[in-house]
């Protein structure tokens, strides 16, 4: 078998986090009953006209700057004409001739190897509606809630050559866009979508093979599987002496296979022309400077600052800064309780664990830095012990409870009275003569059992360290 290499390019669609749609004042809120976030403009009713949301341009510029692009300071909107029920005007307002950003790049690292992935362009466009297939009747229901939600489409150069590189690229893009606050990039909610363009060729060849386009991957893992699947499918075809057909394929993750999409009946001639209803967008040097100045601190800079300012290890700083949300919680909580190492541990260990368990994204963290800071203070003051603190934290994580109020309401405070504790310990010692004997015989570990029994009797409202100390005192009397 010959050796092959894969050439991959991505078209990533990203829903912008604006409050309203790109051309009308309807909400962009996710969900909602069908056609309740719709007005005559985004429903494409006759006589209606688009008016551009300025925030869309601001976000697109912010993304372009962060992705090292040249900004097209005079850009226009074009109409892309085709018929499909999810497109009410039968044209999508997009940008072809003068996209807002061009010639950028993103740096990724895979297995220690650094690589720069080129970004061909970024353009603004409007999203289409949703088609819901009715199971009972042979028909489709059209919902325009999503129609008009602003998108940026990020088109990469065909610079990637493996699933790992693609995932690294997507993770970097997602992090950057989340950091900027420009999009929440949630694949499962559709605010981040990726189409894969893939072709294979013999290693060493400089001619590009025929490429296919893949759609309908709903997670990074599915994307990785789709890439592997398509790569193999194309190589197999070539090995059999057949050729690859240029087509769009739909990935079915359940079956782990792709299928050629039925080609749309007519020629895909989109007849792009500048939209006469929308004046061009002119971005002055001053505007661009303002965007650059307002860019938030990006991940690498934040990471370096954490190492210096909070004396964290690079490893810990890297985990904390992987998500802007987590980094923000870290800084705010540390500012309140002045214990960055503690805050860091709660985030890196307990929070990360819970995120995995609940299959959540760090961007969805609900709890406030104030509550985390308070929990740390309670623990530090000895008001609660560490096991209790962990339990309370789970509540803080899930429901953002106020830890102080929660501890009070559920009577979780450590028994502060040492006298009462001593009494309980004496009772345990009296009830367990064998363990006491073992201890005195040299089995120092036997104290652990007695500590455990004490904790049980105290219903957890004791500090293990204090129990250990008092036990030892009593035993050694």
């Amino acid at each position, binding site marked *: 078998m010959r050796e092959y290499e894969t050439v991959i390019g991505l078209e990533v669609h990203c829903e912008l986090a604006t409050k309203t749609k790109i051309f009308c004042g309807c909400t962009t809120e996710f969900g909602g009953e069908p056609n309740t976030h719709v007005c005559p403009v985004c429903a494409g*009713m006759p006589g209606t006209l*688009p*008016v*551009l949301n300025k925030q869309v341009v601001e976000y697109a510029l912010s993304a372009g700057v962060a992705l090292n692009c040249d900004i097209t300071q005079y850009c226009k909107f074009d109409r892309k004409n085709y018929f499909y029920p999810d497109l009410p005007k039968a*044209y999508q307002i997009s940008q072809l001739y003068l996209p807002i950003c061009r010639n950028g790049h993103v740096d990724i690292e895979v297995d220690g190897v650094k690589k720069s992935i080129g970004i061909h362009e970024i353009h603004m466009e409007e999203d289409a509606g949703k088609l819901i297939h009715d199971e009972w009747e042979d028909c489709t229901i059209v919902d325009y809630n999503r129609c008009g939600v602003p998108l940026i489409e990020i088109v990469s150069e065909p610079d990637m050559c493996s699933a790992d590189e693609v995932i690294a690229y997507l993770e970097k893009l997602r992090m950057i866009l989340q950091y900027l606050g420009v999009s929440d990039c949630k694949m499962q909610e559709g605010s981040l979508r990726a189409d894969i363009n893939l072709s294979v060729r013999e290693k060493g060849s400089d001619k590009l093979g025929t490429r296919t386009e893949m759609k309908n991957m709903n997670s990074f893992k599915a994307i990785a599987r789709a890439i592997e699947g398509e790569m193999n499918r194309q190589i197999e075809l070539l090995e059999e002496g057949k050729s690859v057909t240029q087509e769009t394929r739909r990935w079915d993750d359940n079956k782990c296979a792709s299928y050629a999409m039925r080609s749309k009946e007519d020629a895909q001639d989109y*007849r792009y022309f500048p939209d006469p*209803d929308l004046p061009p967008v002119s971005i002055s040097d001053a505007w661009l400077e303002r965007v650059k100045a307002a860019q938030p601190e990006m991940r690498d800079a934040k990471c370096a600052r954490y190492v210096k300012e909070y004396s964290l290890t690079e490893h810990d700083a890297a985990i904390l800064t992987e998500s802007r949300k987590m980094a923000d919680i870290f800084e705010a909580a540390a500012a309140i309780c002045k214990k960055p190492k503690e805050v860091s541990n709660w985030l890196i260990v307990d929070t990360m664990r819970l995120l995995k368990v609940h299959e959540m994204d760090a961007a969805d963290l609900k709890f406030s830095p104030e509550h985390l800071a308070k929990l740390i203070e309670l623990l530090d003051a000895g008001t609660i012990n560490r096991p209790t603190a962990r339990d309370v934290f789970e509540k803080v994580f899930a429901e953002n409870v106020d830890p102080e109020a929660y501890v009070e309401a559920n009577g979780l405070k450590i028994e502060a009275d040492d006298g009462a504790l001593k009494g309980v310990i004496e009772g345990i010692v009296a009830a367990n003569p064998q363990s006491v004997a073992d201890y005195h015989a040299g089995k120092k570990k036997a104290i652990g059992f007695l500590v455990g029994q004490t904790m049980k009797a105290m219903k957890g409202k004791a500090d293990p360290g204090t129990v250990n100390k008092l036990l030892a005192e009593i035993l050694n009397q």
Partner: protein
Amino acid sequence: MEITALTALELGKKIKAGEVTVEEAVKAQLEKIKERDSVHNCYVTVMEEEALKRAKEVQKQIDAGELDDSPLAGVPVAIKDNICTKGVLTTCSSKILNNFKPPYDATVIEKLEAAGAVIIGKVNMDEFAMGSTTETSYFGPTKNPWNTERVPGGSSGGAAAAVAAEEAWYALGSDTGGSIRQPSSFCGVTGLKPTYGSVSRYGLIAYASSLDQIGPIARNVSDCAAVFEAIAGYDAKDSTSVKMEDYHFTEALVDDVKGLRIGIPKGYLGEGLDPEVKEAVLAAAKTLEEKGAIVEMFDMDMVDYAIPAYYVIASAEASSNLSRFDGVKYGYRTPDFEDLQDVYKKTRDEGFGMEVKRRMMIGAFVLSSGYYDAYYIKALQVKALIKKGFDEAFAKYDIILGPTAPTTALKMGENLSDPLKMYLGDIYTVSVNLAGLPGISLPCGIDSDGLPIGVQMIGQAFSEKTLIRAAYSLEQTRSYERPACVKGEN
């Protein structure tokens, strides 16, 4: 004199003076419509109930002094059927919208109603405003009140005919390549296409977005000025809307053209122009000269290229604007379909007339890959040159004057078999839309067939006040001619 023979402003004064009630005006108009419209076919929808109801409301407002600043308060108006009226059929004279009731009013409707207007009905047009004779209407052609074997012009034929036949005091039409001015010329009334962007297009069902404008058709320049004042204005819902500095257009109704520099393009007076039209237009120019204007012939290039550029641009934009009529969200849907493609193709084939289909195919063609540069981009370059030509002319002249159309009203039934020939009749009007300029057509004579002749004046962008003054001055030298069908009743 019958109140239906009054001008809109004259009626407005009588209503304010308490001599006529709004309800009386509406009833008088409805009666004339009943009498004459079965012959003329100006109206697609007569809003009898709504108008009578609204008449009472407006009367209350007038009596309470709330509409003292509105000279048109209480005056009924007819609206071209491509302008959205909430809850009322808006069909664009097409089968594909024959059941469409918009859930919103066009901005111009909101403005007119705020000024106390009473909408009395929706008037006929060429289907989707594509045509110059109103013969492509799904609801049958409108007849010219001067001679019912002639067309009223188009695409605002219903509007112009209704005003001429005194079935409306004034109307709102739309103009993309001459659709207000040419029918005004054929029907002996006055029509103004304002500067692009001066009147909001929100709620105007689009034909060619970069060329469409809404404007008044009435029986004199004063009425047109008053209506324009009521409907012009910046609209945040229309991104191509422009804020003008001065909206006091009725202040320009002054009979004075001393020193006004008027240019007549030589290219306008060549072959193809009817000799009687030429004579009447030159006579109008002479009148203005006698009143102190400076009139001169000059060379303006590009005259021959305006029509091809217009048809490429208009068809391209129309093909895109009309794609939304697909049987999915509103309007007609074919009753006979098996799959989605059927819904699209049959709905559109059954719902659109031949002229509309023709222009959509031309539009698809000139935008298709391989032809885009040669046709669409080329047409946009020609448009730039046309604008430049006008800019150069307006450095020397205040007004450009010429015929509105090369002929008077054409015979009915002769025009649709040769679309190209019909397109060539737009020669004097399309370049004005391409350059976004204001243009007004007013009557300047009657030909030997007894048909009205129109003269067109064109101004530099946003110079409607100069245009109104020039037109008003010319108007004072001629009396308003009424068609025979309204005359025997004084």
